[in-house]
C-alpha cells in the first residue's frame, strides 16, 4: 500500500540540527497533524519531505522509493506542498497560477494540452475557485488565494499533500472551509495529508493522527485524544490550559485561562 515513511530522519540548516531521529508513517485517506510550539521544526519537516533541504541522516520513502534518488519533477509528481503564506505573482490570473501545478507533468518542449486544462478545471471546481479563474491574484482575498494554492497542489495530481499552517492568517470561516476541503479531498482521493497546525483545536477536530514535536524530537503521537492533554501541553508549550471534550464529538478541546494578574487587571477595567 502507498505510504510515506520517515526513518531516523535528522534535518537542519548547516551544522544546526532542528529535528533529530524523526520516525513517521502516514497512510492514504488520513490527515496526519504535526503540532508543537513555534520553532519546534514543523516547517522544517515539510521542507525536508519536499526536499528543499536534505536530511543530514536518515531516509524518507514514498511508496517504498527513497526521495533522494528522484528527480525534482518526479518528486513533484508525488508530493505537492501548500506553503505557509506563499509569495504569489500578483499580476498572473488564478487560472495561470493553478496551471503551474501541471509543471512537473510537462516536458521542456511541450505545452499544456486538453488533458492539463481539464485537470486544472477539475481542481478549480473542487476548490470552488473556477468562478474567478480569469481574475488577477492581487484582486483576490486571503481565503481565495489559499484555495488557489490548494487547487495548484491538486493539479499536480500528487500522492502526498503537505500543508504548512494552511489556516494561518485566515478568519474562522475560512479556517473551517479550508480544512473541510482538505479532509474531503484526503478521503475522496486517498491522499496522504501531512499538515502542520498551531491551533490545537483545529488539529484535534480535523486530524486522524497527531504528532507532537518538542525539542527537535517526537514528544508523543497517536489519536487527538491520546496526544492533547493538560500535562503534555504544559510540558511542551509551557502553557497552563484546560482540556475538555468537545460537546458534540467529544474530541479534546483546549481552553486557556488568562494568568491571575491579567485577569485582575481586566476585571478592574471592566468594573
Amino acid at each position, binding site marked *: 500500500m502507498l505510504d510515506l515513511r520517515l526513518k531516523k530522519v535528522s534535518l537542519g540548516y548547516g551544522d544546526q540540527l532542528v529535528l533529530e531521529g524523526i520516525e513517521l508513517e502516514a497512510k492514504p485517506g488520513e490527515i496526519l497533524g504535526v503540532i508543537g510550539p513555534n520553532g519546534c521544526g514543523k516547517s522544517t519537516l515539510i*521542507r525536508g519531505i*519536499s*526536499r*528543499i533541504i536534505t536530511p543530514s541522516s536518515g531516509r524518507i520513502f514514498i511508496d517504498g522509493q527513497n526521495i533522494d534518488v528522484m528527480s*525534482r*519533477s*518526479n*518528486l*513533484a*509528481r508525488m*508530493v*505537492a*506542498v501548500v*506553503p505557509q503564506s*506563499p*509569495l*504569489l*505573482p*500578483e*499580476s*498572473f*490570473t488564478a*487560472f*495561470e497560477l493553478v496551471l*503551474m*501545478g501541471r*509543471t*512537473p507533468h*510537462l516536458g*521542456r*518542449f511541450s505545452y499544456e494540452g486538453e488533458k492539463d*486544462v481539464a485537470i486544472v*478545471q477539475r481542481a478549480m*471546481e*473542487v476548490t*470552488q475557485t*473556477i*468562478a474567478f*479563474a*480569469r481574475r488577477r491574484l*492581487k484582486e483576490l482575498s486571503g481565503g481565495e488565494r489559499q484555495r488557489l494554492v490548494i487547487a*495548484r497542489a491538486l493539479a*499536480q495530481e500528487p500522492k502526498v499533500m503537505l500543508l504548512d499552517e494552511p489556516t494561518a492568517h485566515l478568519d474562522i470561516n475560512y479556517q*473551517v472551509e479550508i480544512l*473541510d*476541503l482538505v*479532509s*474531503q479531498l484526503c478521503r475522496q482521493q486517498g491522499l496522504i495529508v501531512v499538515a502542520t497546525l498551531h491551533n490545537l483545536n483545529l488539529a484535534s*477536530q480535523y486530524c486522524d493522527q497527531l504528532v507532537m514535536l518538542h525539542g527537535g524530537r517526537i514528544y508523543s503521537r497517536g489519536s487527538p485524544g491520546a496526544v492533547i492533554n493538560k500535562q503534555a501541553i504544559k510540558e511542551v508549550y509551557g502553557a497552563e490550559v484546560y482540556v475538555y471534550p468537545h460537546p*458534540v*464529538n467529544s474530541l479534546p478541546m483546549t481552553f486557556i485561562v488568562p494568568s491571575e494578574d491579567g485577569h485582575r487587571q481586566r476585571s478592574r477595567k471592566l468594573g
Partner: protein
Amino acid sequence: MAKENIARKSAALELSHVSAGKKVLLYHLGWRNRLYAIAGLGLLLVLVIVLASAIGSTHISLSTVGSMLLARLPFVEIPTAWVGSLEIIIFDIRLPRVMLAGLVGAALAVAGATYQGLFRNPLADPYLIGVAQGAALGAVIGFLLPGNWHIASFGFIPLLAFAGALMAVAVVYAVARVGKTLPMTTLILAGVALGAFLASITSYLVITSGEKLHGIVTWLLGSFSLARWGEVMVVLPYVLVGTVVIWFYARPLNVMQLDEEQAQQLGINVERVKLILLAAATLITAAAVCFCGTIGFVGIIIPHAVRLIWGPDHRFLLPLSTLAGASFLILADAVARTVMAPAEIPIGVITAFLGAPFFLFLLRQKRRAIF
C-alpha cells in the same frame, strides 16, 4: 456535524460543474489574442525594416525597396526596374544597419525581460550585473591601445568589449555564489559593486584619453554608423541561439515568479534554470553591446510596455519583447540618422527621448500594477 458539513459541500460541488466549459474557452481566448499579437508584431517588424531601409539621404520609394527585398527571396521573380546604385545603397549600407539595430534591439529587450523575471525585480535591465561596465572598460582599453589593431577585418575594440562584459559577469558570479546556490540578491549587489568599480576605472581612462576622447564617447553613447554585414553575422549567432534558449525556458521562468522554494516544489530545477538563463541573457547582451556601445532604456522599457499590454506570461512576454525591441530600435536608429542629417544623434538619446513619453503614456493609460 462535520460529516453533514462535508455532504453539504459535496452537493455544492456537483452544481459548480455546469458552466465550466465556457471558462476554459475564455481562457483559450486570452491565448489566442496573444498569438495574434505575436503575428501582428512580426508583420510590423517586416514593415519597419522596409520603411527604415527607404528612409535616408537618397530617397527611395517604399515600393522599390519592397520589390528589391522580395526579388532576393528564393522562387520570387520580379523584373528589375531600378538602378544598380540603389541596390548598393539598400543592400550594402542601409539593410545591414537596419538588421544590426534590429538584432541589438531584440537582444536587449529579451535580455531585459529575462533579467526582470529572474530577479523578480522590475528595475532589472540587461546591464544590471556589470555587463555594460565590463564592456565599456574593455572597449576603452581597446581605444587606448597603441596602433590600429584589426583581427579578421574587425576592430580589436568589439572583441575587448565582449571579453570585458563576460569577464565582469564571471567575477560577479564567482563572488555571489554560495556553495551550489546563487542567491539573486547577492548577485545584484555584487554586480552593482563591481560595476561601480569598473566604471570608475573607465571614467579615469576617459578623462585622460586626450585626442581619442571623441571616438570613445561616441562608442559609449551607442551608434550603428559602422554597421556592415560582417558585424551582423558576428552578432547574429549569439542573439539567435541565446534568444531561442531563453524562449524555451519561458514556462520555468513563469513558475519562478513564485518564490524559489515553491518553484522547486513544482519540480523546477531552480539552480540550473537560473544558470542557463543568466548565461544566455548575458551572452546576448555582451554580443549586442560589443559593436554599438551601451544603449540604454530598450531593455527596461520594452518588456514593461509588453507586460502592460499583454500580461506577465513569459511565453508571450519573451517573443513579444523580442519583436517589439527589434522594431523599436530600428525606428529609433532611423530617427537618429535622419533628424540632423548628415550628422547623427547618439541612439541612446533617441531611445530615451522617444521611449520614455510613450511608456509614461502607457503607464497612465493602464493604471495597473504591472509586476
